């Protein structure tokens, strides 16, 4: 069994069989991570560049750990957003990295489309670690893995993504991945944070958090960027929390069995209270642990995939 593509750019259009293969492989690697020696020689001799044009300590560390546990040589290349536009162009940076003959590139960039561009100019396998507000497929895959691990299935579940959908790269990767796995996906947030045309992706839209809690098995709660209120997306943090934040009372009243995910880092008292963030409903730290196993699976499946393999 192998994946249908040489790269992981997003989950839109990715077949269910690919997602299942990644989830199964991740389950095997999760067992490795529970052993005293958490390392396998699978990617020995392979070089992976973590090309981060945006600071994202969590995602980068998760990838780096996954690469090291697979015995790959990991190199970090970080460019702060502020130096973009000065000095070396992006095109030249990519050419330089390519000249170093790397096997895989893990890329995070503020502009959508950069991972696709890399597949055109570089010979390496490309993994999208987040591009603009486009996709963040490894985050969605670890979310789906965590849901399946906790609830035993994904098919037929009602899953709601809560928060700033319009500025999220995680939301749409979740939508596509969950839909491919047979879940019913919805979103919930202020109308200013629901992007236009979303209904064409087949998701239901809520503006009432109580109904979203009551009608869903899983809530995947996104981080709110607090500076968005300055641009008029919501009036203030207090109002956001009051109308869209998760509290224990709300969950107890509407659906005590609901499962809560959050990709982190949490704004406690905004997206959810500390009681929810640390309570029994959530699996936030399991998500972090699963992230390494899922990224190991993706690195392994792409890194060992033969050219022209179908």
């Amino acid at each position, binding site marked *: 069994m192998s994946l249908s593509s040489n790269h992981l750019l997003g989950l839109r259009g990715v077949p269910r069989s690919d997602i299942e293969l990644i989830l199964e492989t991740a389950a095997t690697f999760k067992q490795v991570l529970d052993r005293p020696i958490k390392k396998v020689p699978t990617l020995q001799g392979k070089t992976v560049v973590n090309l981060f044009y945006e600071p994202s300590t969590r995602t980068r560390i998760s990838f780096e750990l996954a690469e090291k546990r697979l015995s790959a040589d990991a190199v970090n290349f970080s460019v702060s957003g502020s130096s973009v536009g000065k000095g070396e*162009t992006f095109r030249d940076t990519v050419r330089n990295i390519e000249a170093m003959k790397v096997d895989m590139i893990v890329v995070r960039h503020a502009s959508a*489309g950069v991972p696709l561009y890399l597949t055109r100019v570089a010979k390496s396998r490309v993994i999208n670690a987040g591009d603009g*507000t486009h996709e963040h497929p490894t985050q969605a895959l670890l979310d789906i893995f965590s849901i399946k691990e906790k609830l035993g299935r994904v098919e037929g579940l009602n899953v709601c993504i809560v928060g700033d959908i319009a500025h999220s790269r995680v939301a*749409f990767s979740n939508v596509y991945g969950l839909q491919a796995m047979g879940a019913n996906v919805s979103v919930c947030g202020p109308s200013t944070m629901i*992007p*236009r*045309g979303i209904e064409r992706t087949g998701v239901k839209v809520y503006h009432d958090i109580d109904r979203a809690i009551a009608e869903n098995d899983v809530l995947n709660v996104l981080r709110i960027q607090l500076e968005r209120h300055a641009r008029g997306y919501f009036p203030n943090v207090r109002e956001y929390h009051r109308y869209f934040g998760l509290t224990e009372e709300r969950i107890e009243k509407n659906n005590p069995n609901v499962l809560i995910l959050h990709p982190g880092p949490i704004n406690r008292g905004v997206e959810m209270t500390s009681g929810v963030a640390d309570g029994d409903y959530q699996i936030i730290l399991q998500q972090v642990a699963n992230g390494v196993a899922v990224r190991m699976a993706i690195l392994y499946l792409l890194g060992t995939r033969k050219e022209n393999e179908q």
Partner: protein
Amino acid sequence: MKVIFKNARFIDPERKLDETGDLLVEEGVIRRIGGTTTEEDANGADVIDREGLIVAPGFFDMHVHLREPGREDAETVQSGLAAAANGGFTGVAYMPNTEPAIDSAEAIALVKEKARGSLTEAFPIAAVSVGRKGEALSPMAELVEAGAVAFSDDGAAVASSALLRRALEYSNMFGVPIVEHCEDPDLAGGAMNEGYFSTIYGLPGVPTVAEDVIVARGVLLAEFTGGAFHVAHVSSKRSIELVRDAKARGIRVTAEITPHHFTLVDEDVKTYDTNYKMNPPLRSREDLEAALEGLKDATIDAIASDHAPHAPEDKEREFIYAPNGVLGLETAVPLALSELVGKKVLSIETTIEKFALGPRRILNLPIPKIAEGEPANLTVIDPAEVWTYDAAKSKSKSRNTPFDKRLFTGKPVAAMNQGKLWRDGEMKTL
């Protein structure tokens, strides 16, 4: 020197001329239309004998960026005008957003000097405000005297409603229009059209309403002041409706559209190729359909390319950081012939009107006549030629086009003006 077009069809919509025969040009002047060429005529003449050629009044592109002064690496006046002639245009109006901006008689004189010797004539559209800063009105009377045919702060809308009001009032003394780049900067600020495709491509969106509110503002101020308001590169359905309604009310409003806006749509951004990034952005299929309607019912008066050359190191970069704009001079006529005439949206006569008559009427320029004794200001097209555009061979200094390697039906094959003939990528003096 003599040039003869044999068995050509002459179409001059203004004079309701549509005849087939031979056309003889001597020393840059039309000597004879119709009939057949005698051996004496043909003696020593450059004879162009191709079936189905159409000879029209010279085409005019009222929206080009020549980049000189300031970005001569991307385009110069000479290279831009060569691309214009190669694309079948005998006249262009160039935008003032150069570095420095075209806001003085001296700046116009500089470009005029650089344009000397070209087949294609270059008319300045001068800045509305000094330095395009949106503060003080540019010296409009002086600029008109120096040759300005319109005013625009293109690249951005006129910065305030008050400044636009004064610009419309003042420029109206000379009968010169204000050409507005309709974009509300607070509502815009994205990288592609806002809608389903910006949502799934994960790019920040520019809503159509960012264009519409500025069109509406211009229409109202044109009505209030009596000035002439021209909508540059109209792209949204609602804006087209606003122009249509304004015209019906007798307000002095006109509009142009670019070939990329009647050919491509937002969905085409899917490869993240920055040659699909322009301002206004490629819109939805619904907006494109409305544009075709607007062309048909004459809501849209002119086709203009918004030729916007960019150096490769500027254009080939991350989508959100890449500058807006694409080349247009060499592909405008082929796109109109393929997408409008070929798909039966417009007749060939109406297409000629959008290129030769519409822009000149807006800018109050004389329309070239196909008549004996008139200077030969002509565009010759072969509406049936099937050919592939090769951007590498462009006369422009830049290569930023989404139409490289595109197959076209219809081609501008020659242009004549200023006593010169452009043919097969070369200029000859007659």
